[in-house]
């Protein structure tokens, strides 16, 4: 799946971003948004796509599958000690 997000009104494939600081910040952000979005105070637009346990998924698909449950309610999430643990397992190598 294309890791497409919207920045300042332009659709951007994260993989095409040349500056590693910008790329990594956006990857972390969209991943984090997926962790928190289901019952966050912050509304998440359907247009955003994010990283879910290493797979890039569409927010609409996520919602259809899990409804409004948060990651905390998923058995998969319980495998990880905390966000850092989850983060380390799935993303550190990609970022460096």
């Amino acid at each position: 799946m294309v890791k497409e997000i919207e920045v300042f009104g332009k659709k951007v494939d994260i993989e095409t971003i040349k500056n590693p600081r910008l790329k990594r910040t956006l990857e972390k952000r969209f991943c984090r948004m997926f962790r928190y979005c289901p019952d966050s105070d912050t509304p998440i637009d359907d247009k955003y796509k994010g990283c879910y346990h290493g797979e890039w998924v569409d927010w609409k698909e996520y919602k259809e599958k899990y409804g409004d449950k948060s990651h905390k309610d998923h058995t998969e999430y319980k495998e990880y000690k905390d966000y850092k643990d989850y983060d380390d397992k799935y993303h550190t190598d990609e970022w460096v």
Partner: protein
Amino acid sequence: MERINQRGLGIISKVTESCNLACKYCYAEHDNKIKSIMSDETLENTITKCYEFSGERKDPHFIWHGGEPLLGGLEFFKNVIKIQDKFKPHKISNVIQTNATLINDEILDFFIQNNIHVGTSIDGPEEIHNLTRIYWGSTGAFKDVMGGVEKMRKKGMDIGAIVVLNKKNVNHISEIYEFFKRENIGFKANPLIKCGRAIKNYEDLSITPKEYGKALIKLFDLWYNDFDNMNFSCDTVEELLGNITTAHPRGCDFSEGCQGSYISVSPNGEVYPCGRFGSDTPDYCLGNINKNSLDDIFEEKTKKKLLERTADAIEGCRPCEYKQICNGGCMHNAYMKNGNIMDKDFYCAGYKMVLNHIKSVVKKDLGITG
């Protein structure tokens, strides 16, 4: 509407207002004669009431602050864990913000064993740090701080630091950045907060919003163009970059409704909106954890007023293109300007400078015109 946001309630618990240091801008204005440490009763009430108030789904996280929290000794933190253990399987989450001078191996082993994260405060390399972060009697604390950092490093602990940008270091951003990079210590750069001892020393230490903005731009450029060690972080500018590119702000200064995220408990149990408010802002004392329930505190009229502070409620913020990015900024920074929390953040002009800069850099990098 839920009163606590998704991440759960953060409790800034001030173990003591005493300190072995006498930093020139400390939140706590104390004379080092009052040695009171948070009592067992206050500690028990703080932890118990916060878990009970948080309910089943949202785990509170505790930020142990001061003064110097390690003046409470290892026994204090053993008691913390003992009380928190009663609330398992709730997640237990603790961070301690220490000046690092009192750290020893026994304390660190306990912190590692109980997953207590440690943050410290360093204002830059030795000659800069020692201008503001000093012992009683004015001796600089740098060597002892770095001794504590070294002990943490030997134990393989993550080390993070807060830099307070003030008149003594604001024009030394390159030296500060290079120092933290060399030491591989991730850092946040906070502006001077006018409270506690900083009120007395404000003329000598204060920075203008433009000076802060200029410093953040310099910091952003250094970090954004530095790929030597991608694990080296400067949270302040990374946070601003993430906030403006996603339009979903994070960080206590920028999140909408920080009052759904934080309270602060002083050593005697007084509850304040956050750690920046305290005995020098008695009008913002929301109650006492030993006498009041958190339900009562969240229903208290001052707390309700704080919960209503949004960018749209602040006249000066309504026309701003960044109002969704900063949400009016920090209410204490507004308060420090003229005593009005319903005003813009004192550092607003600086945030606009750095956000304009980041937007321009990112647009150029992504080939976005207009």
